[in-house]
């Protein structure tokens, strides 16, 4: 299974509060995801153009994000607007952070895997209201997680390569799959609304998810250990 240029979920919408930032990863690309104080989500390369510091360590001020190191501030377009050490300087237009296309659908934050996607995500699933459950980070290859979901679910609908509806503990769950790296995967889990007895169902799906994570990691670990021994031998 390969994961090419496409839209990928990188967080639950409630994982990034207004005015906050966080780091994440898509394949080998480090991303800074942040939400401005008006609630608009952004996904950028996680690198300040000044010294390469991770922008996700920075802090959000209104519609700008500032780097933790020297406070350089970038607007929504990625354009640097303020260099605190030179407050009177009109910042050159060439100082820009690299942006990715970012959309919110189904209670998840979606990012296109290459810069400047031309088309919005097409998710062949009604853009219904959802109830967030949790993001689950698994030390296991994305293809192995996908395979396990297919094997363990009685019914499975693939709306896209990275969006599935499946049974979790007798409940219909929507799962967005994020290839975090070669041996790490994130699953972003939501319940289609309306949900009766909301907290009880969230707990049930969380239990299912934690058990899935435990099994996948138990299976993945011996392989990783073998690889480590092999590396050591080389």
């Amino acid at each position: 299974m390969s994961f090419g240029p496409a839209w990928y979920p990188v967080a639950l919408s409630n994982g990034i509060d207004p005015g906050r930032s966080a780091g994440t990863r898509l394949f080998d690309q480090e991303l800074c995801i942040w939400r401005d104080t008006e609630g608009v989500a952004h996904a950028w390369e996680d690198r300040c153009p000044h010294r390469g510091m991770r922008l996700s360590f920075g802090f959000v001020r209104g519609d700008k994000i500032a780097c933790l190191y020297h406070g350089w501030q970038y607007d929504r377009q990625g354009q640097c607007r303020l260099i605190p050490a030179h407050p009177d300087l009109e910042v050159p237009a060439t100082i820009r952070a690299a942006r990715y296309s970012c959309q919110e659908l189904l209670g998840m934050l979606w990012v296109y895997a290459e810069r400047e996607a031309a088309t919005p995500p097409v998710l062949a699933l009604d853009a219904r209201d959802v109830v967030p459950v949790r993001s689950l980070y698994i030390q296991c290859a994305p293809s192995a997680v996908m395979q396990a979901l297919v094997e363990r679910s009685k019914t499975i609908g693939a709306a896209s390569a990275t969006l599935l509806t499946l049974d979790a503990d007798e409940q219909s769950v929507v799962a967005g799959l994020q290839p975090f790296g070669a041996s790490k995967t994130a699953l972003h889990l939501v319940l289609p609304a309306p949900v009766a007895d909301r907290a009880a169902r969230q707990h049930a799906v969380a239990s299912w998810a934690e058990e899935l994570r435990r099994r996948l990691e138990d299976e993945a670990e011996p392989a990783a250990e073998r690889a480590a021994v092999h590396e050591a031998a080389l």
Partner: protein
Amino acid sequence: MTELTLHNYELDDQCYKVRLLLSALGCRYVKVDVDVHPGREQRSAPYRRLNPLGALPIITEGAFVLYGAEAILAFLARKYDSERTWLPDDPTTLGRVTQWLAFAGGDLNAASLARAHALLEVEADEDSVGRASRRAFRTMDDHMTRREFDGAHWFAAAIPTIADIALFPAIALSRDFGVDHDEYPALRRWMTRLRTIPGFVTMPGIPSYH
């Protein structure tokens, strides 16, 4: 010294727990700086008499001496918090607080060790303490994920307790030893809330801008 005195090292995450609670309680105290790195003063004979384990934090108040961050938090909460919110009396909450205090001084101690190894040349198996730290952080994130399902925002009670204070430094400082907060969304939200506690103070490694 008869006044409440904290034997302190600014870069020590265990001392930070105590400074954080003292600040939240609005307690006046004397701070004695100890040369932990590179002096290893906490292991000197005078300090061994206060704490045979040769570690900080230590508090003294007159002839009374107490060491170990979690014990000190419990003592301070009981003595100086007349509202009894930081260490509540009711058995279930007290039990839960104690459970997380034991976790903070137990499983989560791997994170202190990982950080001391990265910053202060303390010996440790980097891979194994790193793995154990991530396992402990995951346990905490799983717990807070479920707390949020139930509309709760703190580890052990409807309000912040000394359990929250004891658990905060390890994850807030985890970037010091290369563990980012990417995988812990519920802990990110909880850390944001913790910063709003009146009297919240930072330490080196915890930026104040947020």
